């Protein structure tokens, strides 16, 4: 970890090397420790440190880019010059309004010293604990435990000066018997927030209860989706349509639906990078504060998120959602409003349906309506007369996620933070849907 002063000193020096009209530099640094286990033993155990400078250089309405992790004077100068030369090669873009100006300070506290200092022994101890939980039930346990520090900073010739250091921790557990599997996942910016033993129990119980599943006929069923499955839906809706670039290019599920009540009135979704109940990142790769954006309110589709470029095209302001150095804006700190039903209430309200722990390998089948296909995995059960009665073999679905959100009948009262590997986080409750389209079953 470099620290606030060292990061800004490095970036100020780099900025001084630029002779372009406008320049900004986005620093992304990560110290990661990750212990991967399978067969109840650690088989991959790694650490890495990397510091990357992402440089944008502007001449008129031309923008060039370069990245480097060579932090020597010569390495930085070379990258600065490459970005400048790339800008000179570009044709002018009339819609480009220049790099963004400073837009206020954005600060969120999400640094935990114990998480930052977590060593391989601590991670190994956690792994050993969950492996022992599985061993008591003759389950094969696999997964990953990770901890680390992420530093991000942006400086620009317009005066943007932003720095944030946050920690992260995550534990994934997969349990398997000869005929079943279970799953649990926890994440936070504080390792101590993760109840590793509870996650172990959760994963073990799914595998124990899921043994000897039976195949059911594909077709439409009511479903109760656990939080991991709801995370998949929200992530897909984000990636395939909540960014303004996708809307402007006409390939978003939001096209033709903005202002429309396309989802159940019980569905409210927003993005907020400053909420410490998520995985907070206070500003984006342009140094713009990540504003709260109400994307869906009581089922009505409101607005996508913006970066400075997409905002400029519409005469509005950036919402601070340029999540990465390249590509369009992304809503990556999503929240879904909780309801009033417990998970048991959701199951009890189902006469005949399917309980789904999570989805796997979901991909966009059609952009209109965000039609996705994928599999259930790691704990799929039949619900009959309001009770889970038996495990079922994993099912393939082909389903519009927009229509799925229109079919939401009840929303769980407890939400869970699901922290994904690349900094994408959702805080979501469980859901009960009146209908979900299963199109196949696996062997």
């Amino acid at each position, binding site marked *: 970890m470099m620290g606030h002063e060292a990061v800004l000193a490095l970036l100020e020096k780099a900025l001084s090397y630029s002779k372009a009209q406008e320049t900004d530099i986005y620093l992304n640094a990560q110290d990661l420790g990750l212990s991967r286990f399978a067969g109840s033993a650690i088989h991959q155990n*790694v650490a890495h440190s990397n*510091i990357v400078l992402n440089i944008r250089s502007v001449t008129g309405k031309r923008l060039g880019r370069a990245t480097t992790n060579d932090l020597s004077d010569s390495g930085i100068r070379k990258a600065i010059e490459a970005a400048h030369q790339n800008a000179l090669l570009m044709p002018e873009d009339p819609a480009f309004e220049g790099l963004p100006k400073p837009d206020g300070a954005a600060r969120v506290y999400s640094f935990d010293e114990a998480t930052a200092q977590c060593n391989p022994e601590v991670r190994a101890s956690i792994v*050993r604990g969950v492996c022992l939980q599985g061993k008591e039930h003759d389950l094969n346990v696999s997964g990953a435990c990770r901890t680390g520090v992420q530093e991000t900073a942006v400086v620009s010739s317009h005066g943007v000066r932003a720095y944030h250091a946050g920690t992260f921790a995550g534990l994934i557990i997969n349990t398997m018997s000869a005929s079943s599997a279970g799953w649990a996942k926890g994440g936070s910016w504080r390792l101590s927030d993760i109840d590793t033993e509870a996650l172990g129990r959760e994963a073990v119980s799914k595998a124990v209860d899921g043994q000897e599943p039976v195949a059911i006929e594909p077709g439409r069923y009511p479903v109760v989706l656990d939080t991991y499955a709801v995370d998949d839906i929200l992530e897909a809706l984000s990636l395939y349509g909540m960014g303004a670039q996708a809307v402007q290019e006409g390939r978003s599920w939001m096209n033709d639906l903005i202002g429309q009540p396309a989802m159940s009135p019980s569905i409210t979704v927003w993005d907020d990078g400053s909420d410490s109940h998520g995985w907070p990142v206070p500003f984006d790769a342009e140094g713009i504060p990540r504003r709260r954006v109400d994307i869906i309110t009581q089922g009505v589709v409101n607005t996508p998120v913006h970066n400075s470029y997409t905002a400029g095209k519409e005469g509005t302001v950036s919402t601070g959602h340029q999540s990465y150095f390249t590509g369009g804006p992304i809503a990556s700190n999503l929240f879904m409003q909780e309801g009033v039903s417990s998970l048991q209430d959701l199951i009890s309200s189902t006469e005949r349906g399917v309980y789904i722990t999570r989805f796997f390998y979901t991909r966009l089948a059609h952009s209109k309506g965000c039609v996705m296909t994928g599999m259930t995995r790691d704990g799929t059960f039949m619900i009959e007369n309001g009770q889970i009665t038996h495990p079922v073999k994993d099912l393939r679905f082909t389903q519009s996620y927009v229509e799925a959100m229109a079919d939401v009948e009840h929303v769980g009262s407890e939400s869970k933070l699901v922290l994904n590997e690349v900094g994408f986080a959702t805080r979501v409750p469980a859901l009960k849907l009146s209908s979900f389209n299963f199109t196949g079953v696996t062997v």
Partner: protein
Amino acid sequence: MDDFLSRALDLAAVKGASYCDVRLVETNQERFVVRTGVVDTLSNDESLGVGVRVLVNGSWGFASTNIVTAAEVDRVTDLAVEIAKASAQASSGPISLGAAVKSQGVYTTPVQVNPFTVSSEEKLGLLLVADERMGSVKGISARTGNLIFSSERKTFANSEGAHVEQTIYETGGGIMATARGSGEVQRRSYPQSMRQQGCAGWEFVENMDLAGNAERTATEAVALLSADQCPSGTTTLIVGASQLGLQIHESCGHAIELDRVLGSEAAYAGTSFLTTEKLHNFQYGSEHVNITADSIRLPGLGSYGWDDEGIPAQSTPVVERGRFVGYLMSRETASGLDLPSNGSMRAASWNRIPLIRMNNVSLEPGNWTLNDLIADTDDGILMEMNRSWSIDDRRFNFQFGTETGYEIKKGKVGNLLKNCTYTGITPEFWNSCDAVCNEEHWTMWGIPNCGKGQPGQLGHTGHGSAPARFRNVQVGVMT
């Protein structure tokens, strides 16, 4: 730089490592992206770093850094040893790597024209012409084009005496047109979805002729808006070469990764139905199905001199006349089967450990011309160019969507079809294959975005394929 490698090997031995390998990697990349008349990205990206992997008391440790100095190399070597010792808290016992690896040599991807010697103006100009031609077609709402060029200079050394240097060149590009209208959104890509990529030089882009195919690509996207919907049912399916490349990748390539079979990827990418008792004892496909995994067939993206354990590039039969006969293996996993590694370990970067990755996993050509195959098909659908892909965690149940489909009626190509999908169970599907087209129709496709591992790694794989015919396939799966 060799001093740093020796330093790490020596220090690891002093610290008690029974094995150590070190990779010093420098990557240079040029990226060009044009979106609907605007240059979205013109970027030069450089990355340099060193990774140290050690085996201590039968457990692995790995650490890496982007600061390539003697002090940092010492620090990460120490850290790798410390991590390995921690791994021993949850260990499954001693690890065997088989016979010592002492490879020596130098390898460079053969290229006709080094892509970094071609000016950025020429590269950008090519994309802008293609973009303009796509934009000339009425009904196109968005268009994209991209080019990518990379060189990776890698030096590998291990404590058994291996020392190899490689420079791998990659070149790729592609275009895509999106049409929107009448409540429908459709797209067409060329040469394949996202881009075609290979271990090759600038000549690879010239051979694609992106500009020459731009107007046709856009016209086909618009035509799809008013095309017939793919019918639902069971029919004869001819899978085009590009789509079949991804079918091979998902249903064969991942299934033969021995680390998946042994459970190492269970919590993330999944496992495999091709368990070890099936080796030489399982009819994976029909007699027409012959699949090879190699790291030597250029311009396949899985072509190299040595893998990241220093094992020389080679070719391995995977499926012979339908019978399953081979895995992709590392030294450790191969040793468990009393086999030698076939050189399939690759890391995506200096800061990632090597994993078993597909190299060039290809369906060998058959004897048919595509015209003859269509003429021989009474009733069916020809589907081509991937639009969506999904498969279960054991690689059984798959579903693919394609950009286009064409009816085949009484041996002739009929109407254009949109929203085409097909689904099946892997061994049933490959056992239903009754014809594969010949070498004239065979292309080596490149997939540069194969995800695996934690932390995530994007692998680059090659897949040679020609159109092939499958009987009794379920098609037209939509909501």
